[in-house]
């Protein structure tokens, strides 16, 4: 582990506010970029980013230096993002009841079209189609693909984050790509037949 990182963790564990500020400065883009790529909604991503850092603040004491700090942070980030997805799916199931009786039944689900802020303007449409297809593949494939293609992690780093082997990640990425191709093909076939 890098010496600076070790020092930062030690200070975080001692509850130093300055260290917490530094951790946010260092890792906020990494956390937010991962979350927004998974949940595909800016407001939710802002919210979950805050939750991730609150979790870090509250449980950094239990962090053991077996893994890198960024690996631990990625794990929290992914867990929180997937929790949010599950919550949304549950809400969607009861959406009808909520619209009948609840006051917050409107506009709870993210729009179908999502534009990642980091994509250049010329690629927005194509990237939107890819992100839409990403929502339809299994969670572990989606996470591996996101960490690789959007966060730029290599297979070893992904294996560490996902607590699996290098070969398992390789297989996950291959399956993710095949499933994405299948989803995109269906989409483009429907589009051309219209």
């Amino acid at each position, binding site marked *: 582990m890098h010496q600076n990182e070790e020092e930062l963790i030690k200070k975080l564990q001692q509850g130093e506010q300055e260290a917490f500020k530094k951790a946010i400065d260092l890792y906020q883009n990494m956390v937010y970029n991962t979350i927004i790529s998974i949940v595909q909604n800016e407001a939710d991503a802002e919210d979950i*980013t805050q939750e991730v850092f609150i979790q870090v603040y509250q449980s950094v004491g239990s962090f053991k230096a077996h893994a890198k700090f960024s690996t631990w942070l990625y794990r929290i980030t992914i867990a929180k993002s997937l929790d949010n997805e599950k919550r949304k799916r549950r809400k969607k199931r009861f959406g009808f009841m909520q619209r009948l009786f609840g006051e917050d039944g409107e506009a709870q689900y993210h729009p179908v079209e999502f534009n990642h802020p980091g994509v250049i303007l010329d690629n927005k449409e194509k990237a939107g189609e890819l992100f839409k297809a990403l929502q339809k593949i299994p969670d572990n494939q989606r996470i591996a693909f996101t960490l690789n293609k959007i966060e730029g992690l290599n297979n070893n780093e992904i294996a560490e984050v996902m607590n699996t082997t290098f070969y398992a990640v390789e297989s996950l990425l291959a399956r993710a790509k095949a499933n994405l191709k299948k989803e995109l093909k269906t989409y483009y076939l429907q589009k051309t037949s219209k």
Partner: protein
Amino acid sequence: MMEKDKNIERQIEDAFNSIKGINKATPKPYLLTRINARLNSPVKNNWESAAVFTSRPSVMALGLCLVLAVNVGVMLLNTSSTNKPVAERSATITDEDESSATFVSIDNIENP
């Protein structure tokens, strides 16, 4: 047909290429301030959370339906038992019931 397939293959390839060199998305400024505000906001205790949950219109409506359903169920059970012929109803009284029954006469009440 071949042309159509090729076209779709090209579109798929374009979609994959669209995220090459993607920039990192960044959160809105003052993240630390917002996190600190959340950390310092009062935490709801279990009773408050329960009160908020039960006061939701959907939960109240569900509770009301449940109470109505129980009432209707009890009513139906009672009407079905009172609809039985008198002979059948009296036959259900066992000897034990009879021996354990105490009769209160007007004398008992006046002279306990």
